[in-house]
C-alpha cells in the first residue's frame, strides 16, 4: 500500500491506462501545458506528448462531439471538463448522442468514452460554478455514472471506466482532490456497480458519496459518543446502483439516511430512498430521511454557502430523528 492523494490516484489511473493501451488519449481545456486546472493531468503531456494529451479551444460542445467521433472509430477518449459546470455547453452531445449512439445504431457502434472532471461546490465560487451534476446524468439511460470518494476508489474506478465499452460519466469531488488515502501497489479494478461498506454499525445506515461522505463519517464519530452506531455506505457508482449492499445494511439497522450534495428534487438521493422503501419496506422502523443542499442557487458568502450544504449537524440530527432520539 502507498499513500496517495485523490488527484494523484486519478493521474496514476490515466497514466497506467494510457501506457497499457495506445488508443487511450486525454483531451480538454488546459489539460496539457497548464497540467490541468486542478493538476490532475500533471506530467501527462511530458509522458505522452501532444498527440495524446490535447489542449482544446474553449468549446465544450466541440470537444465532446469530437471525442464521440473519435470513440466511434475505436479510440478510447478521456474528455476532461475543467469543471462539470461547463459540461452544460456539451449537454446535447452527451445526452442526445453519447448516451444513444450504441442503441440507435442497433448495437453496431460502441462508444468507449469517459467524460470526467470535478463537480460540486468548491469554496465560494457561487451559483454558476457550484453545480452537483449527479442528478442530471444519472437520469440518462445509456450512461454509467461513477463518483469515487477515496483515492483507492478513484484509481480503481477510473481504470474500470476507461476499459468499459459504454460511455461513462466520471464525477470527481472538487473539494477532495487533496484527500490522502491508501492505494494498493498491485493493479486493482473496482467493478462497475459495486458499493463499499466504509464503516460498520448496527443502528442506522447512512449512504453518502463525494464530499458528504467525509461529512457523514464525521457525523458517525460524533454519534458514536452518543451511543449511536452508524453504518456508512459509499455507493461509488450512482448508475448502476448496488442496491443489494444498501438493502443488506438496512435489514440489519432498520434505518436509513441518505446524504447528498445535490438538490433534493429527484436525483440519486431520491432514487436510493425510493428503492429502499420498495425493496426494504419490511425492514424499516422509521421513514427514510435525506440530507441535501438547500433548494436554491449556491450563494457566494461563506456563511450562507456552509448552510446550503449538508453539515455534520444536519446529518447527526437526521440520524437521531430516525433513531427516535430527537423529534
Amino acid at each position, binding site marked *: 500500500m502507498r499513500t496517495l492523494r485523490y488527484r494523484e490516484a486519478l493521474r496514476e489511473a490515466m497514466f497506467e491506462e494510457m501506457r497499457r493501451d495506445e488508443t487511450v488519449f486525454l483531451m480538454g*481545456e*488546459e489539460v496539457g*501545458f*497548464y*497540467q490541468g*486546472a486542478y493538476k490532475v493531468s500533471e506530467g501527462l503531456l511530458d509522458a505522452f506528448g501532444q498527440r495524446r494529451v490535447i*489542449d482544446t*479551444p*474553449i*468549446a465544450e*460542445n*466541440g470537444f465532446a462531439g469530437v471525442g464521440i467521433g473519435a470513440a466511434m472509430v475505436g479510440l478510447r477518449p478521456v474528455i476532461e471538463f475543467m469543471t462539470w*459546470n*461547463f459540461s*452544460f*455547453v456539451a449537454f446535447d452531445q452527451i445526452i442526445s448522442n453519447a448516451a444513444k449512439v450504441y442503441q440507435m445504431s442497433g448495437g453496431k457502434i460502441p462508444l468507449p468514452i469517459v467524460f470526467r472532471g470535478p463537480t460540486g461546490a468548491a469554496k*465560494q*465560487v*457561487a*451559483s*454558476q*460554478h457550484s453545480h452537483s451534476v449527479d442528478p442530471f446524468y444519472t437520469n440518462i439511460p445509456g450512461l454509467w455514472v461513477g463518483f469515487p470518494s477515496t483515492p483507492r476508489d478513484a484509481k480503481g474506478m477510473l481504470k474500470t471506466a476507461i476499459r468499459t465499452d459504454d460511455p461513462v460519466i466520471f464525477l470527481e469531488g472538487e473539494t477532495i482532490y487533496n484527500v490522502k488515502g491508501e492505494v494498493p501497489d498491485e493493479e486493482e479494478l473496482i467493478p462497475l456497480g459495486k458499493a463499499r461498506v466504509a464503516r460498520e454499525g448496527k443502528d442506522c445506515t447512512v449512504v453518502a458519496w463525494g464530499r458528504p461522505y467525509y461529512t457523514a463519517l464525521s457525523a458517525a464519530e460524533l454519534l458514536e459518543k452518543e451511543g449511536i452506531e452508524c453504518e456508512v455506505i459509499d455507493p461509488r457508482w450512482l448508475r448502476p446502483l448496488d442496491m443489494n449492499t444498501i438493502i443488506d445494511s438496512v435489514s440489519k439497522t432498520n434505518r436509513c439516511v441518505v446524504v447528498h450534495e445535490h438538490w433534493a428534487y429527484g436525483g440519486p438521493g431520491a432514487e436510493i430512498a425510493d428503492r429502499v422503501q420498495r425493496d426494504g419496506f419490511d425492514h424499516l422502523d422509521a421513514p427514510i430521511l435525506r440530507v441535501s443542499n*438547500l*433548494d*436554491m*442557487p449556491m*450563494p*457566494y*458568502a461563506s*456563511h*450562507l454557502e456552509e*448552510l*446550503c450544504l449538508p453539515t455534520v449537524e444536519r446529518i447527526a*440530527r437526521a440520524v437521531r*430523528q430516525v433513531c427516535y432520539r*430527537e*423529534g
Partner: protein
Amino acid sequence: MSSHQGAAGVQEPLEVFRVLRDDGTLDPEHDPGLTTEEVVEIYRGLVLTRTLDQRLTALQRQGRIGFHVGSLGEEAAILGSTYAMRDTDWIFPCYREFGSALMRGLSLQKFLDNMFGNANDTVKGRQMPDHYTCREKRWGSISSPVGTQITQAVGFAWAAKIDGKDIATLTYFGDGATSSPEFHSGMNFAGVFKVPTVFFCRNNGWAISVPTERQTASATFAQKADAYGVVGVRVDGNDLFAVIAATRQAVERAARGEGPTLIEALTYRMGGHSTSDDPLRYRGDEQLEPWAARDPIERVRHHLTRLGAWDDEREAACIADVDARFKQAVAVAEQTPPPPLESMFEDVYESPPWHLVEQREQLIQGPRAPKSH
C-alpha cells in the same frame, strides 16, 4: 479605417486601425475630436482602473477579499469602447470590465460592497467578487460560463429594434470566447436580422494559459465577421482614440439600421488570468516587454503632457485621490455586516414556494419548526 465585408476568398489580414501616433499626436483624418477636458476625464478613469487593480490584488493577497479578475493593460480598450457608446445603449459585460461599470456610474462603494460580498452588495452576497451589476446605468449582469453574454446582447438589441427603440448593445468578450458556440450563434443571428450590436473582442493574447494561435487558425479574429456578413474591424486596443473612433462608427452604423460590427481590439493581458492564476507557469516576462512599451495609459499620458494638460504633480494628486477614496470605501465595506441568513431565501422565485418557506423556518427556528404541508 480598414473594414471589409462579405468578400470571397482568402484575404490579407486586416490592417490595424490607429489614431494615436508614437509622438503623442493624433492622426487628423481619424481624430474622434474630443476636447482636452474630455480626454483628461477619461485619463482619470484609466488611472482609477489601474490603481484599483493594484489595490484589489493586494487585498486579495492579504486574504481580505477572495478573488479579483483584473484588466491590467486592457484599460484603454475597455474604457474607450464604453465611452463611445451612447448613454441609452446597454453594455453586456464579460468579467474583466469593472472600469467600464465605474465609467457608467457604478459607485466605488457599491463596487467594493460586491468585492466583499456584504449586506449592501447589490447582488446580496450571491456572486463572486467582480460579479456586480448596475441595471440603472444600463450595465448588465455578469455570467461566468464563457460567451453567454454574447447571444443575450443580440437578443436585447433585437428586441429593442422590433420595439422601435434606438438602443444598441455592446458586448465584451475575449479571444477565447470566439471558440464558444455563443459567439457563432450570436454573430450569425445578428447578421441575418441586422441587429444593432457591437461585438467587442478584447484580443488580449491569452485564454488563461492558451495563446491565440491555439485558439484559432484564422490570421485574425476580425475576419471571422466575413463569414456572417458582419463588418469586421481591427483596432489597436492600446490606442484610446482609435478604440473610441472605431466604436463610434460601429454605433452609428447600428443606429442607421445597418446592423452589427465585430471589433477586434489588439491588446495584451499584462497580469494573470485572475488572482488564482500564476502566469509564470506558461509565459515568460520577456513576452510582456513589447506591450509594456505600448502601455495604453502611458500613451494617453504622453499625449496630454504634450498638450500641457497633465504633469507629474497632477498624476500624483490623481492617484492620492483614488487611494483616499479607496481606503474610505474599503473601511465602510469591511465594517458592513454579511448578508442576513433570511436573504438567501429571497429571489429564487418572485415569491417563495412552500418548501423554501419550510427550509427557511427550519434553518432559523430549528427542526421543530411547524411543517407547512
